[in-house]
């Protein structure tokens, strides 16, 4: 408990009202980019074509980030947009003239915006400057991955202090923070998805002023500030903010909202259309999808994370020597905390030959071949892959990514069928046959198993109940404790072979937890495997 209850209550007692200084920012060019992107997202989403869905998801992610993070209007930011869609004519040929027209409109907006200072960044810098000038302690609530965009606001006049304690990234951070003066938040107040913040910002403020900066049209969630103890009989959720302001008696906290609007007026009548709330709009189209569950993202380094269902008991190791049960099932965000290690078991493989392969043995071979072919004739390789049925639009950049050496995971296509096409096109199956140990299957299958294993996908042949496996693993970990502690003291991730006489065959993968984020929503197949954060971003709506 880093802040005492008495300290929090003393602060609340002295608080007459929380001031919300809401800055609404408009930009004609950015508005045009938003509209075009929104329409492309919707049309591709409705195409019911897997590739279209993927591109729609990627664009959704990009626009959601732009709306909730003070990204600079630079090539780096907008390049991602072109990378997703690729060549304008190819888009027209693949998706039709209307998508092409929207794409061209978006690109014109991008051209207009590139190199300009984002008005959002201007206002965030101003908000920080005012807090500093007035000597008021401030915090910034943002996603861990967004922090660099705030830190890059530093200029010759100062800016964000580099001290880590300026930033709040999670419910836990907020729970532990001592009261302060100003909270800076970019984007609407939402409980889930992009730009999500804890409901406690409204129900249990630890600040006097909320400096909120939003793009025009982005509204707070109507039910933000949820407290089950303040339920009214007919509805779930607290009264809206205005009602809370009126209900300032009964020892309730009062809120006062001041809205300031910023923006250019160099727009035509068409461009001055009121902005839509894309974040809400995206949530609505996502909610049409069935089969998703709420998820918590356990981040294991700056590029990778593992999704778990809510309240999942995650097999984990606490390196604290005083921990009573160093290895046990813990709940992300509750008993599972940063600095602990999640344990992903790869158990039950029947093929011991494959099990003993070292991390990256197979990938080394196919990655070398892929790099060679890309260097020799990338265009021809792309053509052959497309002919074989690998139709990813950003194939060339994807292949460059797959060539990267194994790190936490082995970078490779997400889908098995794509990987199989890649291996056949590289003819690596045939050339590798002689080197395979007798009795093993095709090279690509072994290589795919290696990729899956690097992602922590549990192969549970022979086991019906994951819980039974985990109970055994807790016992096994107890016997391996010296080796686990030794590794944990030196590395952020490591793997340990399960002793052959333990009754379970396989490996244990350990990853140190460096962040936990709740409020995502993902399909069942995405749980308990290591994914790149760029892939998990799509489950944040």
């Amino acid at each position, binding site marked *: 408990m880093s802040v005492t209850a008495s300290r929090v*209550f003393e602060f609340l007692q002295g608080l007459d009202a929380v001031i919300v200084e809401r800055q609404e920012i408009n930009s004609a060019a950015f508005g045009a980019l938003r509209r075009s992107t929104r329409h492309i997202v919707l049309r591709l989403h409705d195409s019911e074509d897997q590739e279209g869905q993927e591109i729609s998801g990627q664009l959704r992610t990009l626009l959601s980030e732009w709306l909730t993070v003070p990204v600079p209007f630079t090539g780096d930011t907008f390049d991602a947009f072109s990378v997703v869609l690729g060549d304008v004519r190819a888009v027209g040929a693949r998706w039709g003239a209307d998508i092409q027209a929207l794409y061209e409109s978006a690109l014109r907006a991008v051209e207009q915006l590139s190199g300009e200072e984002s008005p959002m960044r201007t206002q965030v810098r101003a908000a920080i400057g005012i807090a500093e000038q007035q000597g008021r302690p401030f915090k910034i609530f943002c996603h861990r991955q967004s922090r660099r965009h705030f830190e890059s606001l530093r200029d010759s006049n100062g800016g964000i202090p580099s001290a880590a304690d300026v930033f709040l990234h999670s419910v836990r951070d*907020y729970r532990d923070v001592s009261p302060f003066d100003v909270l800076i938040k970019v984007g609407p107040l939402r409980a889930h998805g992009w730009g999500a913040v804890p409901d406690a910002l409204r*129900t249990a403020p630890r600040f006097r002023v909320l400096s909120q900066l939003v793009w025009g049209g982005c509204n707070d969630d109507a039910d933000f500030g949820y407290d*089950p103890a303040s339920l009214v*009989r007919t509805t779930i959720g607290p009264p809206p903010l205005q009602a809370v302001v009126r209900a300032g008696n009964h020892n309730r906290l009062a809120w006062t909202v001041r809205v300031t609007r910023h923006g250019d007026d160099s727009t035509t009548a068409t461009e001055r259309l009121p902005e839509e709330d894309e974040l809400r709009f995206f949530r609505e189209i996502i909610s049409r999808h069935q089969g998703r569950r709420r998820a918590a993202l356990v981040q294991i380094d700056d590029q990778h994370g593992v999704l778990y269902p809510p309240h999942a008991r995650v097999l984990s190791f606490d390196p604290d020597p005083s921990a009573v049960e160093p290895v046990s099932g813990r709940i992300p965000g509750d008993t599972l905390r940063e600095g602990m290690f999640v344990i992903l078991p790869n158990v039950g493989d029947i093929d011991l030959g494959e099990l003993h392969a070292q991390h990256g043995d197979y990938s080394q071979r196919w990655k070398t071949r892929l790099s060679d072919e890309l260097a020799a004739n990338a265009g021809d390789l792309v053509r052959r892959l497309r002919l074989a049925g690998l139709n990813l639009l950003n194939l060339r950049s994807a292949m460059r990514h797959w060539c990267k050496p194994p790190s936490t995971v082995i970078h490779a296509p997400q889908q098995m069928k794509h990987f199989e096409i890649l291996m056949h096109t590289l003819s690596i199956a045939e050339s590798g046959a002689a080197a395979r140990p007798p009795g093993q299957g095709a090279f690509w299958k072994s290589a795919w198993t290696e990729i899956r294993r690097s992602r922590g996908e549990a192969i549970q042949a022979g086991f019906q109940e994951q819980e039974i496996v985990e109970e055994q693993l807790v016992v096994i970990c107890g016997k391996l404790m010296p080796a686990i502690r030794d590794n944990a003291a030196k590395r952020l991730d490591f793997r340990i072979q399960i002793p052959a006489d333990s009754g379970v065959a396989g490996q244990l993968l350990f990853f140190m937890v460096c962040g936990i984020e709740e409020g995502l929503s993902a399909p069942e197949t995405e749980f308990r495997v290591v994914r790149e954060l760029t892939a998990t971003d799509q489950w944040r709506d």
Partner: protein
Amino acid sequence: MLFSEETSEWKQIPEWVTFLLRLGFGWPSELSARRRIALVSMPCDSAAAGLIALGAFIRDLGIEGTNDVGQHFDSLLRYAQQYLGRCRDCTVRCKPELQGCGYVSEATGRIRSTAKPPKRYFVEGFSLVDDRHIKFRNGGTIKLYSAGATNYYIDGDPPPIIRNESGALSSEVYAQIVENANIRRENIGKSYSGLCYAGRIAGESASRAICASIRLKVQNVEYRLSDLLTIHGWSSSTSISRANFYNTRTERFDREASVPTLVVADGDEGFLKILSHPRFQRSDVIGVIHKAVDRERLEAVGTRLEGLRQWYVDDLETFGENSRPPKGIQLLVLAKRGA
């Protein structure tokens, strides 16, 4: 009386502490058909559940008959029956949920005497008809009847009564914690299981630690909340216990006891577990949650309460001034309809 939290300086009792103590103290004491369920949402991590439990604890000290003495012999009989009928020959040590035996914890057959020096006995027989008795041995065999039951207690449980004044609770201390509290002398030396503190999902150590962070100074003597609650094994000053502990992590009780009249649950997950637990279906429940948790967890609590509303109505007005918490605390009280 002075107050301190963790290592902070001593000061007057703050408003939020007074509110929580009085909420527990003013809670209706009778186990009645009009069951009540309350939710207290806190703006920060705190020992709020422990403070409410302490208020209810002091309330119970002032009520006649709030002790386990009257039911003690029946408890010993049930224990002997469980041990000889089930646990002695059971192959599972000890997972009642796996065995499906209907019991919540193992009966080891061990009995202790309250006399000094304490001695351990082993159950070897019992009778439930006419001449109701329990037989146990340690060297010779003892036949125990109802009249002498308080001289013995189940090994691992608190004794029902203490034999000398030195182990009794201090009525002066408890009387000062809540204004106008009336402490009955006959209660300060007897255990009671009518109040249950359901700890944090992180386990007993975490629950004890948060209670130990609250200190009260009465007549220049310092007391920790964890001691004042007299949960079995937490207090060094007395062997009796007037609040039983339910470990929401392991889902185990600290003793075999009858249904509590009031359960104070620390945390959203504990609150939900208690509301679903068959043993607590007639008990009043006060849940204490932290507002700064994931939305999903808040909604799980809200949905559960919304589901209860077909049988329950708002009942805040019953609590008068206690229904007006200080800034930052939200209180919801539901009472069963039509009773």
